[in-house]
């Protein structure tokens, strides 16, 4: 085989870089950001918007000259909602020189990536997972969460219910048989009595939750149990298709007419889009970002307009907003650090305040948790084409709901 001098030099430099363990980070080409999210299976309905939010943010950045003069390229990988698949994808991209990662839906997947981020010398901006542990007992230095989390979201739901429904004092709940179900329930059981006491000076009762399997098809026993218990309000901890199935069967058996309010930890618009005109009255759903609450925010408005132009749909999921926020955080941190190395980015992200789709966001220096707004939207049936409508929304500053930063220590509700 004939080897030219140029090929020989290129090969030798490449071999030397590999032998010395240097990642092959290109300094002049586009900045590659790894988007790890779920693109297959049922959860892809959330992963695709998350990816889309990142792509829109990257496109806008590139139109404005990129980050530190370099174009931004989003490299997407499907994690299939499985930690092992996600870790393999991150290792593959890290080996190819990518040192910035964003996205992820499921908390176990986020936990797995945060666990290897330091080892691989990469930074990971989580744009959806809600597990309390990620910024508490399982905190890792190279992990940042750019959205609210379970404790904030459910505390906001508790405050919202105490504010808007002071007369609903008997509560039931349905949660999945999983850690996330129990942790959201613990937050609700702590928050609702606390806010009722503070705002209305009255006691509330919360029954033991009805626990159901993930992916269950039959919720009739759960509905029957909730109907036979004397409750006015129901906290819904199940999400996605399970939540649709529960509300579908609750409507058929009359539970939705019996209770005064449902509050869900959050399925964005999915439930209303599925149930259409059968969407129950007084159904509140948590959102990562509700565009309608930020009509005066230019970042939010630009993202919304771009989404509508790209898709024709007028109700973007909150996951789009959080994908967008992750890339905005990277761009702001890079501009601050003027350096794209992992160490510089981690340093710049700690305590960083930037303008996102929900207004001002601060990544708390101690535990890397975003201090930002929490959004809830009230949905109900409508005679219009969609069959459902947004009848109210609730936007609250989540700073005082985030609890104290306790990296390395589990959150306590007391």
């Amino acid at each position, binding site marked *: 085989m004939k080897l030219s001098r140029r090929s020989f030099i290129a090969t030798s430099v490449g071999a030397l870089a590999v032998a010395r363990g240097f990642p092959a980070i290109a300094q002049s080409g586009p900045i590659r950001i790894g988007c790890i999210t779920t693109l297959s299976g049922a959860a892809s309905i959330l992963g695709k918007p998350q990816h889309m939010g990142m792509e829109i943010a990257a496109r806008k950045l590139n139109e404005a000259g990129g980050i530190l003069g370099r174009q931004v390229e989003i490299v997407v990988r499907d994690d299939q909602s499985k930690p092992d698949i996600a870790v393999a994808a991150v290792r593959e991209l890290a080996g190819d020189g990518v040192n910035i990662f964003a996205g992820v839906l499921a908390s176990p997947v986020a936990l797995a990536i945060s666990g290897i981020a330091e080892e691989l010398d990469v930074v990971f901006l989580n744009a959806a997972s809600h597990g309390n542990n990620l910024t508490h007992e399982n905190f890792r230095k190279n992990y940042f969460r750019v959205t609210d989390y379970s404790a904030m979201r459910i505390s906001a739901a508790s405050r919202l219910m105490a504010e808007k429904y002071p007369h609903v004092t008997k509560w039931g709940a349905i949660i999945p048989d999983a850690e996330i179900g129990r942790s959201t329930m613990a937050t609700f059981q702590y928050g609702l009595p606390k806010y009722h006491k503070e705002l209305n000076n009255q006691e509330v009762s919360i029954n033991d939750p009805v626990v159901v*399997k993930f992916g269950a098809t039959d919720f009739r026993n759960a509905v029957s149990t909730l109907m036979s218990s004397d409750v006015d309000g129901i906290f819904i901890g199940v999400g996605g*298709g399970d939540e649709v199935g529960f509300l579908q069967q609750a409507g058929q058996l009359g539970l939705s007419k019996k209770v005064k309010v449902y509050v869900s930890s959050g399925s964005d618009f999915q439930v209303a889009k599925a149930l259409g005109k059968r969407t129950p009255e007084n159904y509140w759903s948590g959102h990562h970002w509700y565009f309608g609450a930020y009509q005066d925010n230019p970042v939010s408005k630009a993202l919304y307009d771009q989404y509508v132009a790209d898709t024709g749909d007028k109700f973007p999921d909150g996951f789009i907003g959080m994908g967008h926020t992750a890339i905005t955080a990277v761009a702001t941190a890079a501009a601050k650090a003027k350096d794209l190395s992992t160490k510089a980015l981690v340093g710049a992200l700690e305590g960083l305040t930037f303008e996102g789709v929900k207004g001002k966001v601060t990544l708390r220096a101690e535990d890397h948790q975003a201090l930002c707004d929490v959004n809830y939207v009230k949905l109900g049936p409508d005679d219009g084409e969609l069959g459902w409508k947004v009848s109210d929304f609730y936007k609250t500053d989540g700073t005082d709901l985030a609890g104290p930063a306790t990296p390395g220590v589990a959150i306590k509700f007391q």
Partner: protein
Amino acid sequence: MTAQIAFAAANGIVLGMAVFLVAAGLTLVFGILKVFNFAHGSFFMIGAYIAHAITGQDPSSLPYFLFAAFVAALAVGAMGIATDTLVLRRLSSVANDYTLIATFAILLLCDGATKMVFGQDIYAVYPPAVLDQTMDVGILLTYYSVFIVACGIIVFVLLELGLNRLWFGKLVQTVARDPWMAGVIGLRVQRLKLVSVGVSFALAGLAGGLLVANQSLSLSLGHSYLLLAFNSVIVGGLGSIRGAFVAALIFGLFESFNSLLLPSMPGTVSYMVLIAVILLKPEGLFPERT
């Protein structure tokens, strides 16, 4: 509490019949081809999507709802014939392990194709107005629940009669028992197998069409039922329609009472039943006669 126990019993029967509707095609295809079809849940899901594509969220009438389920059965039956011709038949001479992996590949293919054709949104489909009502018989039941039980019983009776009393059913059983001997006596083995596989897959499509209003419709629908259907086929005795019917009822009742009496551990009793039956009666409740 009495009302809740009665409701759990009634709901267990409904759940059992829903599981049987899915398990019927699964056990039939095992009886004929001796293959565990991993893709069965996906074909069931495709049936549900086809029915939804025809009726939309609110089927205009019961006949239209049944028509959609019938179309779903025909479409999925045709897919079954294609699957048998293109894949399963070609693997009939190799070890069953290969066929098992092939059906897993078909599952992935079906799930991907469904996503491409129908998208990934979650849907809620409702029963036609005549079934979308409740009756108070001491406990609150929906007409649709009663409809599911009736469908389960009808499918069971038709399959039992068809396989054990009709001329065609006896031919199918002959081919399933000893295809070589069936060929020697002049039966058209491949054609009989093909028709039987088509019927098995059509049952999956029919179940999808009939059960589409029983829960939310999403890409995970197939997996939701598949595990309980597999359990019923194993516990009932591989290839036995009667066994699948009885086992599905048992699982439905145990699942239902599990959620009432052990609410913090949903779904665990079913697995205890499965383990117990496998240990005590590994051939299943209604094993194939030899």
